[in-house]
């Protein structure tokens, strides 16, 4: 694996997923990359997916809608509304996967710059534990994945933090 490590935390006592990841760029730039469709098209989405639709109305109460096209041609839509916008340090929005509206989460993303490096912390708060678990099942169809034992380390490391 190359580049900085993506840390993921899955607390067992609240329906939340958190991630932390550092980027080698100032917070203003990372924030803009996160919110401007001109930038978003260049990076957002899993490997092999193309962001074919990207509508952003960046104001409190404004909505966004991202359409990802999978390598198999299927389309996956994520949408939500912005709740708080504090450039370049904080962004709060709702987040849902089309087809599973009951899983709507509240997404809080903070951008902390230190010496040109920006630490991005994301926190998704789901309405229920079930919603947290359904959420990723929607985003990606079952793929041929490595034997579960190989993934245990990752799983255990995640739960320890």
């Amino acid at each position, binding site marked *: 694996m190359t580049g900085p490590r993506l840390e993921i935390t899955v607390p*067992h006592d609240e329906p939340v997923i958190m991630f932390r990841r550092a*980027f080698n760029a100032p917070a203003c730039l990372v924030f803009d990359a996160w919110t401007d469709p001109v930038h978003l098209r260049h990076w957002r989405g899993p490997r092999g997916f193309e962001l074919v639709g990207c509508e952003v109305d960046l104001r409190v109460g404004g909505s966004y809608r991202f359409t990802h096209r999978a390598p198999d041609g299927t389309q996956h839509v994520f949408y939500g509304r912005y709740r708080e916008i504090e450039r370049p340090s904080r962004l709060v929005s709702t987040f849902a996967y089309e087809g599973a509206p009951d899983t709507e989460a509240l997404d809080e993303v903070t951008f902390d710059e230190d010496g040109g490096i920006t630490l991005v912390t994301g926190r998704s708060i789901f309405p229920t534990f079930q919603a947290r*678990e359904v959420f*990723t099942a929607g985003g990606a169809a079952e793929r041929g994945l490595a034997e579960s034992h190989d993934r*245990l380390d990752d*799983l*255990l490391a995640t739960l320890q933090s």
Partner: protein
Amino acid sequence: MKAVTDELSKTFAALADPTRRAILERLRTGETTLGQLAEPFDMSLQAVALHLKVLERSGLVTRGRVAQTRPARLEAGQLGNAARWLLQYREFWEGSFERLDGYLEDLQKEEGGT
């Protein structure tokens, strides 16, 4: 889907405890008896048996029967569901973030170059 997600909730709750994670690590090497499992821990056999019970109820561990012992065995399937779930989340962001790294670098080069 509901049955699967309920199982996942139990799995994550079971995995939340450090002793239970250590037990699972130990079971990766193969079937193990309660006595062997309890050895490295500074706790009673009963306490380890309780942790094993939680793991059993979550579907992560099954117990066989060999003579007078009931060796515990890791159930990869249930762990696989939890691992797969996590991997899908990780893949979404890792793919994105690797591209974002490159993109941010390009943007800064452009700025620096003008």
